[in-house]
């Protein structure tokens, strides 16, 4: 389906636009604006070098690295376990899924198998994280659209309940550092499941309220429909993943494809969009949250008792065999993968994060060309980036 139209990247597109015209004069028609790194809606220290013709974008180059701390190098100079808290800080909105992806990769590398209860806990915390991330995203997106924080505040109100759950489970609200190789760190505290059930039950009500507030709003619809269209063939070729890919209509959800963890035990559907514009990306996230609520209801109902860590897992002196492994999960932002090479020492020889936020930005320019400045902001918002992960 995609092969016939796969794109060979045209080289001309990547030329840096000349600052002067061919006859050597300055071009007075174009306006170069550096949006960021200090800009209210670049979601952190991110810069876009934009060339404008009036308000139309004729060129856009993303510039990264303001938050670069060489996460991978740090991880290669420390033990496997000590990298776990650093993964929290990649995409700081979804520390649980980051932990999960890293733990999954190390388990592949070392041949560990988490017990059933730990898998259930991972699914529960992972899906709660998806709720947190998507809730924040729609809030931020509408903030970028100029809705003055009202949707964002409603989103944060709901997020608070889930962060409370995370705090009583892992001790920290955002930097959970909860999962371990072969399981989880601590068992669920007493009453946690009931509290989680309450939070999940009230979530559908919040989603209804949120949709009533804005989904039918004429301004939102006019601002988002037909804006930042991403065709499916380009999306696949440019390795776009996550809700952004599915908004373009490509059915690819790693929870369904890899069935990692125990996702094959749960009934849920994958929403797909047909237009691939900002509105679809917004709606896909709202629909995914409803599916997450379904998964959570099943997981909270079925969770068994039992141990939470693989007895083979070692906390101190953990040295996987020589070899390599690539593990990936469907993170809230897309495919989050960790690639590890072990040389038999306590530190990984190579530690690589596949950051969905960064790779989803590949097509930012393609989506923005010909749109207005105002659209650039919401297109960027709909990509869903966190600079901690983009720059690493």
């Amino acid at each position: 389906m995609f092969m016939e139209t796969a794109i060979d990247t045209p080289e001309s597109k990547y030329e840096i636009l000349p600052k002067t015209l061919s006859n050597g004069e300055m071009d007075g028609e174009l306006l170069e604006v550096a949006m960021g790194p200090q800009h209210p809606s670049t979601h952190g220290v991110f810069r876009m070098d934009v060339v404008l013709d009036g308000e139309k974008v004729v060129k856009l180059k993303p510039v990264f690295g303001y938050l670069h701390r060489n996460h991978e190098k740090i991880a290669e100079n420390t033990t496997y376990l000590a990298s776990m808290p650093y993964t929290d800080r990649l995409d700081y909105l979804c520390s649980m899924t980051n932990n999960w992806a890293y733990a999954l990769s190390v388990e592949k590398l070392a041949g560990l198998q988490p017990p059933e209860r730990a898998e259930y806990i991972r699914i529960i915390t992972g899906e709660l994280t998806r709720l947190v991330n998507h809730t924040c995203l729609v809030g931020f997106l509408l903030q970028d659209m100029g809705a003055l924080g009202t949707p964002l505040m409603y989103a944060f109100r709901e997020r608070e309940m889930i962060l409370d759950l995370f705090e009583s489970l892992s001790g920290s609200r955002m930097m959970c550092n909860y999962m371990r190789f072969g399981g989880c760190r601590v068992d669920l505290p007493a009453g946690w499941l009931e509290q989680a059930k309450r939070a999940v039950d009230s979530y559908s009500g919040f989603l209804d309220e949120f949709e009533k507030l804005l989904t039918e709003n004429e301004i939102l619809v006019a601002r988002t429909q037909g804006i930042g269209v991403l065709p499916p063939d380009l999306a696949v070729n440019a390795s776009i993943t996550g809700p952004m890919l599915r908004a373009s209509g490509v059915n690819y959800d790693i929870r369904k494809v890899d069935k990692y963890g125990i996702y094959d035990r749960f009934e849920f559907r994958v929403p797909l969009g047909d237009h691939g514009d900002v509105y679809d990306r917004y709606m896909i996230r709202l629909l995914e949250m409803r599916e997450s609520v379904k998964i959570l209801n099943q997981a909270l109902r079925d969770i068994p008792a039992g141990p939470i860590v693989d007895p083979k897992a070692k906390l101190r002196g953990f040295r996987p065999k020589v070899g390599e492994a690539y593990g990936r999960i469907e993170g809230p932002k897309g495919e989050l993968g960790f690639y590890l090479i072990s040389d038999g020492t306590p530190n990984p020889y190579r530690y690589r994060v596949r950051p969905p936020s960064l790779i989803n930005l590949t097509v930012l320019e393609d989506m923005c060309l010909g749109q207005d400045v105002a659209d650039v902001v919401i297109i960027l918002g709909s990509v869903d980036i966190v600079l901690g992960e983009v720059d690493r």
Partner: protein
Amino acid sequence: MLGEGIIKGMVETARNFVGSYSDPERLTTVEYPEDKIPAKENARNFPFLVYDGDDAARGLRCVACQICEKECPPKCIYIVKSKDKKPDYIGKPQFYPAVFDIDVSVCMSCQICVEVCPFEAIKMDTEFELSNPDRFGGLLQDKHRLAKSNEYYHKIHETEAAEVDARLAAEKAKAEAKARADAEAKAAAAAKAATAAATPKPAPNPTTVAPAK
């Protein structure tokens, strides 16, 4: 019809406006310095060192093994091992930290030091009001500031502390039982030796008896 969605949205905001006065579920703000959310049992902020008994210097569980120093991801722990030894809770002579510093401006509250500690000596505190005008010295916590009693630990992490105490008590009981068994064995050996001493044989060397403290 044009405007319908906007009207719906305005009804929703009006509902929230009224709800923020009537429904405590909606107005979730807690006004911080006056009201505080009680700390969750698993909450963690910065590490502290546990001591048994009343004397922080004597009861410190830490034996300066430096595992936490090695495992700490941001390397915020600094330990200098003592030259002499002190008895630990079982009574076994152990080293103790001559210097134990944690730079809380570097610490990222990950709890890995707690997990890797084999002696249950370092635990996470829930105290978070640590702001200090001195950027370097004020946030460098030394052994005396870090030492907190086992009772305090029980107060902030009740379940966890009870488990730890049970485990330590079991270990201690095991160690005592072993010591008793050893002592009995030695006593028996001594008795045997005493009976043997009646016969003309060289007396056993008394220094072989392990010094029990």
